[in-house]
């Protein structure tokens, strides 16, 4: 789960990590009130969307930049251009994202910029802290072009962040001086505690800055959470912003389905993430284009399958459906019954190819065969993929 920058900064605040003072507005009439809470001649106006690259982004009406530094008197006018507008960044895709919240912050005089992130590392089985002296830059580019500017510290899950690791990072950043070391210790310990206590999958500060008066400050904040652990953080659950998510994906997640919309025209319904990906791969291999990734999982009941089938058939781009089930936990009869229920409810106007194998396959196949609905069956995945591609492409 993702949250907005202003929400992430509130968490930073709670964990003792200094951020520049800020205030949000969600309606034009709130602009002046928000700005009045801040000090200084210059105000930073920041569009709040769940995507990076906002500063270099462009609004659909041509207005440039989702992060702007403005004289106090002009901040509200700039915010008015952003609010309700659609911001396109390299992470949003061409459709962009609507800006529903503006975050105003005080301006800081920057002496140096750094990059800092904490994420879960598969290989070491714990958190890794990634530090870079190339702050404010695209970190993937830094890693590829100037890897010497990146320093990593691996934190043992049972030990937690140790003082020597804090010092290693401090000396890498040049925070060795006593007063700076004190500030840094507070920042890094706060961020690690946030990462660990709230089950984050990512805490990223880009840039982390040193101000001209030697203060360490998080100028930006990005925090993602492990979806599997959200259940134990009710305070984080309420930060979820549903307007940032695809409505079809929200609907799917309510039923425990893992759905991702894609741009092709062959819908697929598959059990298991690996097989779902492989099904997309084979549709492409035979010259077709998948309309979605859909893993119905192992414990899907009839109702969830019905919902899954509805979601994929309601996509207007869909010209055909491929159901590929290899039952393990998932039972073929449940899948078949779910499909039949969906067809009964919403009808079926496009071609359907079904391949059922695995647990209870005999009952599943018989249910479909006896139902009288129009569908093609296939004995193998290759046959199923070839069939649906041929039908859709005519």
């Amino acid at each position, binding site marked *: 789960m993702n949250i907005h920058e202003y929400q992430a900064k509130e968490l930073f605040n709670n964990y003792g990590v200094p951020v520049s003072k800020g205030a949000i507005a969600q309606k034009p009439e709130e602009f002046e009130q928000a700005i009045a809470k801040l000090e200084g001649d210059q105000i930073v106006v920041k569009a709040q969307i769940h995507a990076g690259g906002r500063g270099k982004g462009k609004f659909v009406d041509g207005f440039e930049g989702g992060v702007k530094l403005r004289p106090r008197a002009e901040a509200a006018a700039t915010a008015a251009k952003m609010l309700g507008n659609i911001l396109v960044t390299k992470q949003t895709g061409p459709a962009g994202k609507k800006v529903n919240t503006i975050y105003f912050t005080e301006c800081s005089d920057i002496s140096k910029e750094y990059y800092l*992130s904490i994420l*879960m590392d598969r290989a070491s089985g714990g958190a890794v802290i990634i530090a870079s002296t190339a702050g404010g830059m695209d970190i993937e580019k830094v890693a590829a072009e100037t890897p010497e500017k990146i320093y990593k510290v691996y934190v043992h899950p049972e030990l937690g962040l140790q003082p020597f690791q804090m010092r290693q990072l401090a000396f890498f950043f040049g925070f060795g001086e006593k007063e700076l070391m004190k500030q840094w210790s507070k920042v890094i310990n706060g961020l690690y505690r946030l990462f660990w206590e709230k089950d984050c999958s990512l805490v990223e500060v880009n840039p982390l800055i040193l101000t001209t008066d030697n203060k360490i400050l998080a100028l930006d904040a990005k925090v993602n959470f492990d979806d*599997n652990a959200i259940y134990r953080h009710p305070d984080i659950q309420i930060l979820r912003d549903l307007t940032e998510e695809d409505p079809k994906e929200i609907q799917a997640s309510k039923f425990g389905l893992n759905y991702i919309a894609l741009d092709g025209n062959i819908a697929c319904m598959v059990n298991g993430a690996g097989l779902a990906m492989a099904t997309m791969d*084979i549709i492409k291999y035979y010259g077709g284009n998948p309309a979605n990734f859909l893993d119905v999982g192992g414990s899907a009941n009839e109702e969830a399958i019905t919902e899954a089938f509805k979601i994929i058939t309601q996509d207007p781009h869909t010209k055909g459906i491929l159901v590929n089930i290899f039952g*393990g*936990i998932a039972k073929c009869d449940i899948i078949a019954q779910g499909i039949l229920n969906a067809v009964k409810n919403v009808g079926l106007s496009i071609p359907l190819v079904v391949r059922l194998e695995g*647990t209870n396959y005999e009952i599943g196949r018989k249910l479909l065969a006896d139902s009288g609905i129009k569908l093609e069956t296939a004995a193998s*995945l290759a046959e199923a993929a070839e069939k649906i591609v041929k039908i859709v492409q005519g």
Partner: protein
Amino acid sequence: MSILVNKDTRVVISGITGGAGSFHARQCMAYGTKVVGGVTPGKGGMLFDDKVPVFNTIAESVEKEGADTCMIFVPPAFAADAILEAIDAKVKLIVCITEGIPVKDMALVKSRLEHKDCVSRLIGPNCPGIITPGECKVGILPGYIHKPGTVGVVSRSGTLTYEAVWQLTCLGYGQSTCIGIGGDPINGTSHLDAVKMFTEDPATEAIVMIGEIGGDGEQKAAAWLKENCKKPVAAFIAGTTAPKGRRMGHAGAIVSGNQGSAADKIAALEAAGVAVAPTPSSIGETLLKKWGKM
């Protein structure tokens, strides 16, 4: 011969009285697996299906029934605890089917598994389990698709494993052992662990390895295979067409770099002399060609 499980394996099922737990306990027993006990805290003393004793703790099942393998079916919020309980009870093999365990919980479990006093191996979580065809099934894999033979299969994906196994069986080639290592970022047994065991197992003549995007487990296995394995190996990597960056945070890409992509994995495998199947439907065929059987 086989690896990790065989006809003598004594299985205890944690979560045996739950919905999925009871269904698959019966499926395993019907397959011939020696299910010697179940564990559901508070239900100790009862009999599951009138024959399998239920215990309050895993330790009790080890002590009274000599369980050496534990299959875990408890919900995600309690699964890490169940794994730790099995480690504490010195169960040799732990197979965790549960999907959706918080990554932090698994980080702590992994740390325990690496402890010098730990005698347990974990398979999973979020996996279909392990089967030695004709002898023992510890998991949710549909039994009928397997047949005894000499191909070792290892995979991160459940259903994609079934796909590969079914192809082998239909082509007339059985399996020594099939392991689903699970789709979670932090797991107990890696591709590398599995291919090492298959390489050393005299009853395994050929290996199928199935991977997917994310992480670098497949590359590590490929590097090892190149130096150490003379048996024919075929592979398939899912996710060539998957959209980039949907699961990973921005900084995630820096740790895995290019290593998470399907293209990089395929290149590493091919460089190691592994035959990579072009589609998920041609995994069996690709192995047989490499093996000189086709």
